[in-house]
């Protein structure tokens, strides 16, 4: 599946290995978690009321529609957190996986 975002510039940054829902994926140093996700997918999270996919909205820390879970139990606001090597991002939401 191709991602929501299209990279237009700044593609020569160091690569970071992450996983998205268990699948290996690549982010670039300086990517927000939101960018890292949307470069590969079209979903950041599942809405808790309604269960439909969401992919953030404002990208400036205002709407709070981009909180994403990590396999280690952390939750991050994707548009204002930077991607780090080794992050295991879970767009399906931890509750849906029975955690």
């Amino acid at each position, binding site marked *: 599946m191709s991602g*929501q975002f299209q990279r237009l510039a700044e593609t020569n940054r160091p690569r970071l290995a992450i996983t998205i829902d268990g699948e290996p994926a690549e982010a670039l140093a300086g990517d927000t978690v939101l960018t890292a996700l949307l470069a590969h997918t079209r979903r950041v999270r599942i809405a808790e009321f309604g269960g439909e996919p969401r992919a953030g909205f404002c990208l400036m820390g205002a*709407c709070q529609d981009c909180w994403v879970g990590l396999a280690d139990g952390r939750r991050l606001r994707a548009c204002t957190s930077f991607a780090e090597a080794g992050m295991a991002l879970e767009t399906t939401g931890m509750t849906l996986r029975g955690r």
Partner: protein
Amino acid sequence: MAAEPPVIVGTGPAGTRAAETLVRAGLRPIVIDEAPASGGQIYRRQPPGFTRADTEVYGFEADKATRLHRAFDGLADRIDYRPNTLVWSIRPDRMHLLRGGRVNELAFSHAIFATGAMDRVIPFPSWTLPGVFTLGGAQVALKYQGCAIGRRVVFLGTGPLLYLVAYQYARAGARVVAVLDTAPFAGKLAALPALLARPGMAAKGMFYLGWLRSRGVTVASGIRPVGVEGTDAVAGLVWRDDAGREHRTDCDAIALGFGLKAETQLADLAEVPFTWDNLQRQWLPERDGWGRTPVGGIYLAGDGAGILGADAAELTGERAALALLQDRGPGDHGQRVAAINAELDRHRRFRAGLEAAFPFPDDLARSTADDTILCRCEGVSAGELRRAASELGAGEVNRAKAFSRVGMGRCQGRVCGPAAAEILAAALGVPIEQAGRLRGQAPVKPLPMAAVLDTTQ
């Protein structure tokens, strides 16, 4: 009088000039921003490791961006700068901060809030689908991340930023399939004399429009959105042109914005009174001709005190700092403030022109279909808000919020607030200002669980 060091919240154009002015007067302000670097929205800086030149990131505004960044960086050892720090609550003599997941308090006597603005949006069918982002968000993706929000992008809404961001996208190599403006063309013509209060700005706007047209981008005025198509993400947009004909535009992303709304939560928590501003169609904190609020020690600057744009933000930032200096004494800054106010007059006339050229389509907000999601936080529909008014008797927004949960979610009504007020006013059959103002609450943004535990100790 021995007072605490003054505090500035926000490091956009307003906060930067406020800090510079206080430093020039020999003070060492505490300067707080939740962002990792200064610049605010318009002059937001790229993360470390990005290499595009300012001309590429900021276009015509590159010189201003460079100057503002240099001005801020030049203050480094003369201010107490606290980036990555959110002010999440205000009490009369202290503010609550969040930094690195931990909370702490800061006692203060004087503060300048230069907290900026965000996009104002109107819901329409399926606007919560992945691929719909705010217009400002679309610009953040490009400026801050070197990305486009999609491969075929539609710009939908109204306001000068609609054309600017579409132009920036096309220039950067993104495919802009259409710019769809809800404002009618005739209004733009009529607004031209007022817009000429700032001829350079007016010329830039015309340039963006001409440039987009000459590249074959569909540009339409007086449109109405019908709905987003797609099951799990955006696949197209259906809209109606000014003659009422329906069109379907293939796209995978939509940048949505209907002007800006001031970020006023901190002023609200500081108990600054608000008045309804008919021109900007929003509630704004009261301030005098210096940027002073009726609450002692609280000053306002920039778009957070009412939308006037980035150049005016620099002026009102300086002005708020001068007001603070005047009040702390000694010295008289009346002359400089009078000069600033004379200059701001031009910005106000220009703003009136913009509001006439790109009016907020309140009819669109009011006609939001019952089954359209209004509150994206909690998935509440427009119909549920109407029912709060008709069946439960909610006579103003705060009661309606209690009954319907609209505005109660994590964004605190930042996103749904303007449309919710229009829908409620229409349902009650009252003028919008009688539908009331959604009151702000602490924390202004959600705190992480560890920080919540800290606050209860």
